[in-house]
């Protein structure tokens, strides 16, 4: 039980831990990426383009916040993209075909997301099937439901200005930049998520559950309940993001959000959250969301052909992950 540790250790460890932290290497990569795109195309940093990126960023970013917490607790959710599509479709059907008030329809959409998350969480925790399989099945159910109830046709979304539209998809100008209120949602929810994960008692539980579930349970942490609530949260955030998107483009499509689940997981993991649970970072996820957004935006600007688009996205994400792993390994060694 002897450990060779100098008195100096805490201080030097603290400094190197900043460099070693996963967020830090992600941030370095993001800066390099932004610089490369900015040099390759002058329009990349134009107010119009930045406004454009900031309009898209919150929609996936908000889901990524929930996904970060869920991944930190050791689970993940593949049904978020489908929920992103289903929630606005249900809300709009209730308003247009059912004649319900928009507020009531939104409440119904919220309850639907809560139900989907609860079903995911309960099956994963009570029956003990891996979240990969459960949420993959849920993806099919939810996406199928969205297609069936709309017969595959997109719905015209709520385009009358009003409280809810302003709340979710209003826009405002700062100088030559045009921002949507969704950015505030993203910033507000990010701050909340940072607080919860790193400073609240619940965050300690979430990390502990993902790190060693048995240890957490043995200390009296209600691991299953925490996971179920995180599934619900992730579903609700996916639904919220779907509503924001539908309001912004004034259309609710049953295929909206297809493939988002993997993009969101990529954002979270590129940011430095461990896919295996226990280690999560909201700051990293924000960096990851910015990174994926700017990759998607940047490669269009520099003129990659439309059909080759995903090849580049995939290769760049892979390169990010490799670079990330190498930086980490290097930092750990020094």
């Amino acid at each position: 039980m002897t450990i060779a540790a100098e008195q100096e250790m805490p201080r030097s460890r603290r400094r190197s831990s900043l460099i070693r932290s996963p967020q830090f290497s992600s941030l370095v990569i993001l800066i390099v990426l932004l610089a490369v795109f900015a040099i390759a195309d002058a329009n990349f940093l134009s107010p119009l383009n930045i406004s454009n990126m900031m309009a898209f960023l919150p929609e996936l970013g908000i889901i990524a916040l929930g996904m970060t917490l869920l991944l930190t607790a050791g689970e993940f959710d593949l049904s978020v993209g489908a929920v992103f599509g289903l929630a606005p479709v249900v809300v709009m059907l209730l308003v247009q075909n059912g004649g319900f008030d928009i507020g009531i329809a939104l409440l119904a959409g919220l309850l639907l997301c809560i139900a989907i998350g609860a079903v995911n969480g309960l099956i994963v925790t009570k029956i003990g099937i891996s979240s990969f399989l459960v949420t993959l099945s849920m993806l099919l159910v939810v996406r199928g439901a969205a297609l069936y109830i709309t017969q595959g046709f997109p719905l015209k979304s709520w385009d009358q200005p009003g409280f809810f539209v302003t709340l979710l998809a209003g826009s405002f100008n700062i100088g030559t930049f045009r921002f949507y209120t969704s950015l505030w949602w993203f910033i507000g929810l990010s701050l909340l998520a940072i607080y919860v994960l790193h400073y609240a008692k619940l965050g300690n539980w979430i990390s502990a559950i993902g790190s060693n579930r048995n240890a957490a349970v043995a200390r009296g942490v209600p691991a299953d309940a925490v996971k179920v609530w995180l599934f619900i949260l992730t579903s609700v955030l996916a639904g919220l993001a779907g509503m924001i998107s539908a309001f912004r483009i004034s259309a609710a499509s049953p295929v909206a959000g297809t493939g988002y689940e993997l993009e969101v997981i990529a954002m979270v993991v590129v940011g430095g959250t461990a896919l295996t649970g226990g280690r999560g970072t909201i700051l990293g996820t924000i960096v990851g969301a910015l990174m994926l957004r700017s990759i998607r935006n940047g490669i269009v600007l520099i003129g990659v052909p439309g059909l080759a688009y995903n090849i580049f996205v995939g290769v760049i994400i892979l390169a990010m992950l490799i670079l990330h792993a190498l930086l980490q390994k290097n930092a750990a060694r020094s």
Partner: protein
Amino acid sequence: MEVLRLHNLQKSFGSVRALKSASFTLDEGEVVALLGDNGAGKSTLIKAISGVFPVDRGDIYVRGQKVSIRSTRDAMDLGIETIHQDTSLAPDLSIARNLFLGREPVNLRWLGVFAPLDLAKLRDAAAALLKRVGISKKLDADALVSTLSGGERQSIAISRAMQFAAKVIILDEPTNNLGVEETHGVLRFVKEVRAAGHSVLLITHNIHHVFQVADRVIVMRRGEIVAEQTVADTDLLTVESIITGADMSALLKETRAK
């Protein structure tokens, strides 16, 4: 003084009678070793005491009071802390956060699970605790548990149990997978735990360790307690033969006759 008394505990899983009958007492400041081969019922017994599952029949008394233990939380509240090898700590959390996992000091308690951790208090209390149990200078309370060795982790887990003034600390195979030096460290630690007035129930395969730290041995076989002796009254060979279940009666009589 008696701290824990088990009376006729029974537990079956389907048709398997994992625990046929177990009764024993544990006194204050006593280290009792629980021995037995795989499948002897040791883990069923400690899981019942630590609240992993309820027993079918039988009673548990803590300091003479009959108690019912339905969850790990119940057991902890009664002062029974169980430490399993490798399953006690979360490696991605700091030492301080592990020490207070599930009992975090918080501000604004009314916020429930959203209450902010009292990080200063957490760190100070952790440092004080590490110092009190004699592992102060060596470990930084902010270090991640994943950076610690197996023996250090055991010591942290045991310290945590001591800190909450546990009456009974159950150590499940605490020296498994540890090197020689680390094993001695942990065993020394067990003696310190006893000196501090806690009672220890030590589950192990290694009989040599038992003779180094235990006051009493209890041997289980096929779901029953088959022998109970103070360490001073027995020896390694006898205990070993009881565990394996070689023809004991004759052998025991012979040893006792000596």
